[in-house]
């Protein structure tokens, strides 16, 4: 996925001279996760550059550059550290088009690694997507495969609205099925690791059907797509798994069509439960598919605690928690 992200940045930078990349350690060093490796050498220091350690400053400068007419792609090193930039994202980037009646826009894409499963502890594991999904004017995108990562990132950069692009760092190097005690798999054995060269996009606001099924709809995104897929496979459940890919705007049509078909719905995310994005999904499914439901909509999520270090695998919504929820939904 890292290479796919790097390619997406390379492809868009080559096409559009107004794209600039900025963030902590993204320049000469190429990023702490290597996502921007080689780009400064190729495009020069005025298009790919390091910044002071100031998330507020990074987002704010990007907003100002966007007002000028550039298309900045700032990086926040970990989603856990995006909070100092929240005022600039929520009060400024998200509102610029609205408050100026489209005189000024913020065509910026904030890339940030997110999610747990890497022993990152409290401040290298968080999944704060619900904060952003709650803000009118922001788009929230989360890929789960290298193919999607490249296509979605190019689409995000070319989009004229501000996009928060969460990169699940647990699956940077390979898919993760939730079995942390088994050897990690590299992407090259996975079908979705085949990434076409050059330019292609995946439209924002469109979910991907991972598996088709009749018994149960699973709504997931990021790392949890792979975990849910593995559990359903092992249990032999005929599940229809939707990788949402974009939380805002949400592909409500795909969700409705699937839940109306299966009559059952499970929502899976790593983020904490209360007021998480799963609550919004659950409410939408209940409001719009109520008479098709044969069982309560269940959420499988992280617990309502800060992300712990030593008890990571007790916190992570892994195969056991997902399996129990599936049994419960199917038993109704």
């Amino acid at each position, binding site marked *: 996925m890292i290479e796919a992200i790097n390619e997406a940045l390379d492809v868009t930078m080559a096409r559009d001279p107004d794209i600039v990349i900025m963030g902590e350690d993204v320049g000469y060093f190429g990023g702490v996760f290597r996502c921007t490796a080689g780009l400064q050498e190729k495009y020069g220091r*005025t298009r790919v550059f390091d910044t002071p350690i100031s998330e507020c*400053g990074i987002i704010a400068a990007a907003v*100002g550059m966007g007002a*000028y*007419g550039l298309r900045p792609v700032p990086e926040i090193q970990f989603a856990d550290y995006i909070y100092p930039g929240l*005022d600039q994202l929520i009060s400024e980037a998200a509102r610029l088009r609205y408050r100026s*009646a*489209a005189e000024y826009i913020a065509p910026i894409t904030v890339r940030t690694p997110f999610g747990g499963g890497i022993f990152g502890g409290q401040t290298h594991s968080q999944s704060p997507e619900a904060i952003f999904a709650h803000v009118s004017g922001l788009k929230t995108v989360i890929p789960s495969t290298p193919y999607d990562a490249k296509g979605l990132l190019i689409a995000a950069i070319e989009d004229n609205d501000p996009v928060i692009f969460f990169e699940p760092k647990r699956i940077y190097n390979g898919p993760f099925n939730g079995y942390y005690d088994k050897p990690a798999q590299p992407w090259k054995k996975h079908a979705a690791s085949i990434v076409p060269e050059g330019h292609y996009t995946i439209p924002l606001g469109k979910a991907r059907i991972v598996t088709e099924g009749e018994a149960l709809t699973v709504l997931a995104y990021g790392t949890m797509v792979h975990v849910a897929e593995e559990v359903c496979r092992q249990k032999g459940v005929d599940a229809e798994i939707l990788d949402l890919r974009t939380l805002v705007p949400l592909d409500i049509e795909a969700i409705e069509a699937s839940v109306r078909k299966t009559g059952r719905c499970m929502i899976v995310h790593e983020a904490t439960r209360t007021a998480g994005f799963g609550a919004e999904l659950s409410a939408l499914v209940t409001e719009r598919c109520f008479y098709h439901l044969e069982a309560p909509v269940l959420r499988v999520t992280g617990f309502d605690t800060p992300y712990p270090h030593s008890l990571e695998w007790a916190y992570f919504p892994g195969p056991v928690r997902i399996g129990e929820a599936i049994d419960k939904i199917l038993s109704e």
Partner: protein
Amino acid sequence: MADRPDSAAGQGSNKPSLSLHVPEPHYRPGDAVDFSHVDAGEAGREPRPDEACDPAEMRDLAYGLIRVLGDDDRAHGAWDPKLDADTLRTMLKNMAVTRAFDERMFRGQRQGKTSFYMKCTGEEATSISASMALASDDMVFPSYRQQGILLSRGYPMIEMINQIYSNRGDKLKGRQLPIMYSSREHSFFTISGNLATQTPQAVGWAMASAIKGDSRIAATWVGEGSTAEGDFHAACTFAAVYNAPVILNVVNNQWAISSFSGFAGGERTTFAARGLGHGIAALRVDGNDALACYAAERWAANRARANAGPTLIEFFTYRAEGHSTSDDPSGYRSAQEREEWPLGDPVMRLKRHLIALGEWDEERQETMDREAAEMVRATTKEAEANGILGHGLHHPFRTMFEDVFEELPWHLREQAEQAVKEREIKFPEGVPK
């Protein structure tokens, strides 16, 4: 406090008790005011260094006060911008129009024509004179108290009033609180209610101009109270790191609503001096001296345009009126302050200067003031034909949902339909006139 059983007042300890310093302004309501502690210095005293100078050489300018107009109403010293009489008269007129505009809009709020207004009385030079030293396509990132920039740049006054009334003529479609103007055409950035956010954005804009090899620069305005926000620190850091072609104007009007400048850290240092700490050129200027404001901004603009880097300018002035129409300053400061303010009134000082030059007289001033008031009155009437706040002449409901995103997503389309339906339920016979 369990680990310090005898912590009360430090008793039982041989160490001195610590005490918390909470700043307190010199004068509160009813106090007699004596500003003799404010060292304004002599006009013409400060040297004018080369625009490419090293910030480390500017120590005295960050702690001193650049003044051009002396008590004799003449221009003095190296900072005299040597403006011709026509430019000075234009500056004076822009100030007169801004002051007349403020008076009328304030009254309009009191008459219930709108919800809110903020005057810039006493601070006109910090926006009008300063912005006149910039090119018209230099980008400005103002706070909410620089309406003088828009008026100086020829933005139609009726558009400002439409915005204040949130009427059907309002270009911002009634979405924004009054005075939060926006005009891309006039290189005037959309004003935000969130303080100081515009300062690092201005730096980003300036960086973009530099990235593209443009010649335009950016300037931002922020009150001294808002310099306490983290954004201002980010702005200074980024401006210095990237040598951004930007001017950071700090309008020190002594008051942030009810808290005096001491709560922004102004008791022990100047706001200009914060620039030096960042390695940014720093000037401290008499903000009620139109010539000094112009000269300082021009110096900083030349510096930025020559790739010599950013400048922080502190305009030392006084907020003569309340913070806003929602504020009553008699609740926290002495009414005498305004009268006793040692740097006087920027409009009167510029007027007296022009008269001293033989380029103006009281009669022409009276005519100009009368014409300004008449123009504002006529424009207000014209804008009122488009409606005033709460009288039904607003933009259609559907526009509330537009421009959240470039395109209307399904959930906003559904909510827009709901809003229209609610209106039909509320007004089954059609919307009342």
